[in-house]
């Protein structure tokens, strides 16, 4: 028989990880925790993050030599999926997935940074998008060079975890013009540097998103990750890891919304019948379940490919993100409709799912972006 880590089903370790994560999150971070965070004006709960560090989740992609658990991308996807089910808010994707993946490619110099991520002491944000759509090559922000110093000037429009992160990965232009995939450089800098203004955005998902305005923020050549003018290459593994994990989160979210909805269909009575006995609703629920099943395969595959053949992961990752964005959209739309009026009320949890699904669909590339990647790869 094949080694389970080569298949699309969970290994024994992964089954245990999933069970443990589901159990922990149900206790520590039910959807009501997101509501509490929102009502308290807090993007996420630092105590939850500390617990995640304790369990090794913050170091899921950090090598053991830097204090990480090094469980791999499939495991990171399973954690993200479970977080998605209950809408657990944390800097997990920005820090433990994207930044950790970028930094572990950066050689011995990044060892210290990886240690702080695994320990949960530092959290990262990725400052990339300058417009309303994901388009790394369109980066225009200037990094003006004077000797070994670079001065960053410009605005990053939509930065997840941007107000709470202690460090920021910034993609800026050191040569070429906007639209050129070359000439970009990736910097790792302290979020409290002079000249960096972090403006919180009040986004629909009640999480930490910020606009980062850079006014001649001074960094040095030592802060460069990867090579000068080749920042997109240094960033790509992190982006792919983040896209795959975000896709997993969205799929978990879809599953969570579908489970709540199914529970409601089995309980709510109208016309003297449980509404779940109506075939019109049964077929919609069954179709939704089918879509989630199909997407779950793309999620498992993306994790496996990132673990086993990371240099060849573009198609698998885009497939996961494209499918997940659509499936989450379907799940939350169906959830609201099948709940009826109560689904529209703030007091009921389903609204949180629809909001996070919309944000997750946009971040790191929407359906159209990733479908186009697949189309290009498949001769369409």
């Amino acid at each position, binding site marked *: 028989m*094949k080694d389970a880590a080569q298949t699309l089903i969970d290994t024994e370790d992964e089954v245990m990880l999933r069970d443990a994560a589901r159990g922990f999150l149900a206790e520590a971070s039910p959807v009501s925790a997101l509501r509490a965070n929102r009502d308290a004006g807090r993007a996420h709960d630092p105590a939850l993050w500390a617990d995640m560090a304790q369990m090794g989740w913050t170091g899921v992609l950090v090598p053991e030599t830097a204090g990480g658990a090094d469980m791999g991308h499939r495991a990171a996807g399973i954690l993200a999926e479970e977080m998605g089910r209950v809408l657990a808010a944390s800097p997990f994707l920005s820090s433990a997935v994207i930044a950790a993946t970028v930094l572990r490619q950066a050689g011995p110099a990044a060892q210290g940074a990886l240690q702080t991520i695994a320990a949960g002491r530092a959290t990262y944000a990725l400052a990339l998008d300058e417009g309303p759509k994901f388009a790394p090559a369109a980066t225009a922000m200037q990094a003006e060079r004077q000797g070994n110093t670079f001065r960053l000037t410009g605005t990053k429009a939509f930065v997840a975890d941007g107000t709470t992160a202690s460090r920021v990965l910034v993609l800026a232009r050191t040569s070429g013009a906007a639209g050129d995939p070359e000439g970009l450089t990736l910097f790792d800098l302290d979020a409290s540097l002079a000249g960096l203004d972090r403006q919180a955005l009040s986004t629909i998902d009640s999480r930490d998103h910020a606009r980062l305005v850079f006014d001649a923020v001074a960094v040095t050549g030592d802060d460069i990750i990867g090579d000068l003018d080749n920042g997109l290459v240094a960033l790509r593994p992190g982006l792919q890891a983040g896209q795959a994990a975000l896709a997993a989160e969205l799929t978990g979210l879809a599953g969570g919304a579908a489970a709540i909805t199914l529970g409601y269909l*089995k309980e709510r009575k109208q016309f003297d019948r449980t509404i779940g006995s109506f075939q019109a609703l049964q077929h919609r629920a069954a179709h939704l379940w089918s879509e989630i099943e199909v997407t779950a395969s793309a999620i498992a595959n993306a994790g496996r490919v990132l673990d086993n053949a990371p240099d060849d992961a573009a198609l698998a990752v885009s497939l996961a993100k494209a499918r997940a964005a659509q499936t989450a959209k379907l799940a939350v739309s169906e959830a609201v409709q099948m709940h009826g009026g109560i689904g529209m009320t703030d007091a009921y949890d389903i609204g949180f799912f629809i909001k996070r699904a919309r944000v997750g669909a946009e971040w790191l590339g929407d359906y159209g972006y990733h479908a186009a990647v697949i189309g290009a790869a498949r*001769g369409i």
Partner: protein
Amino acid sequence: MSDATEALAAFRADISAWIKDNCPASLLGRAFNENSIVWGGRKWSFANDDQRIWLERAVKRGLTAPRWPVEFGGGGLSRAQEKIFREEMTAAGAPPPLQSFGLWMLGPALLEFGNDAQKAEHLPKITRGEIRWCQGYSEPGAGSDLANVQTRAEDMGDHWLVSGQKIWTSYADQADWIFALVRTDRDAPKHKGISFMLMDMDTPGITTRPIRLISGKSPFCETFFDNVKVPKEQLVGELNRGWDIAKYLLTHEREMIGGGGQGLLGARSVAQIIAMQEGELLADPVLRAEAMQTEVDTLAFGLTMERYKDQAEAGRGVGNASAMLKYYGTELNKRRYELMMATAGSDGLEWDGAHGGLAPEWLRTKANSIEGGTSEVMLDIIAKRVLEMPGQ
């Protein structure tokens, strides 16, 4: 590399060399369609000698039924080996040496429910392509409600006497034997009075005639049974428990139809058609977006087939989730063919035009979500058995 990985790599090298050495060159890389299928059977004539040579060589190595036990003419391969075999067949452009309902359906049923004599009698003839089987399930009054079959088998002491009518019996006019659902107890609840019976199509009293479909000629037939005498030993499994076998086989059939397996759904890809139109239609943004969406869903569905197979291999059955594969796969296939017809434009409108038989294939796809259980029945199964939603 682990020992297991090494062994599989060796197997791949071996089987790949075997395919190159044994599949006649004239068969390699040919477009795969209904006309290139080898079905076998008493009435079969090969389109060319190379097809016969290829079948004989594959039979010798047990590769017409790669996973069946060697004693019945199978190859005794593991699932991992079978997957490698299929991959190498695809890579070499080699066609399946034999396809048949015996391989896909009756064989698995006999392996699970048949007695030793039945296995020894029928399985080797299936693997060698000597006997061609057809399936007698649906009746005029038993479509989606399959358990309503009324074809009667009366116990006459030393034989069964079968009377009734079957419909949608694919290739019944070409087949040598039929496996059928017959009613053996008219007083029991309808699921509990059905038995699974094997009959030689040459038995006096069996007649069959083809049904023409919107796609032109079709493999479907009506088959009539008029006081047909059937030996007692041709009942498979327990008396009145045929529904269990039917359900088991329907699961197989659904996975097969849903998965586009065995060429039932057609092997064309959207990219192929686009390439044939020399990229001209790629300029249509609506069609292009639709093509990308279809490709996204097709890739994800392919991975789902793979994941379910992995699950089955790990000893956890797929069960009622096969209804999802059937539902999703057939609906997706209909979408693909709509898209291909739109891409082909007026070149696709002739019965046999620039794209070969694209139009009849497209018409034929409309049956995919009806045969083997309609999409609506599949959604019912998912709702009731997977999601455990309440009954009416």
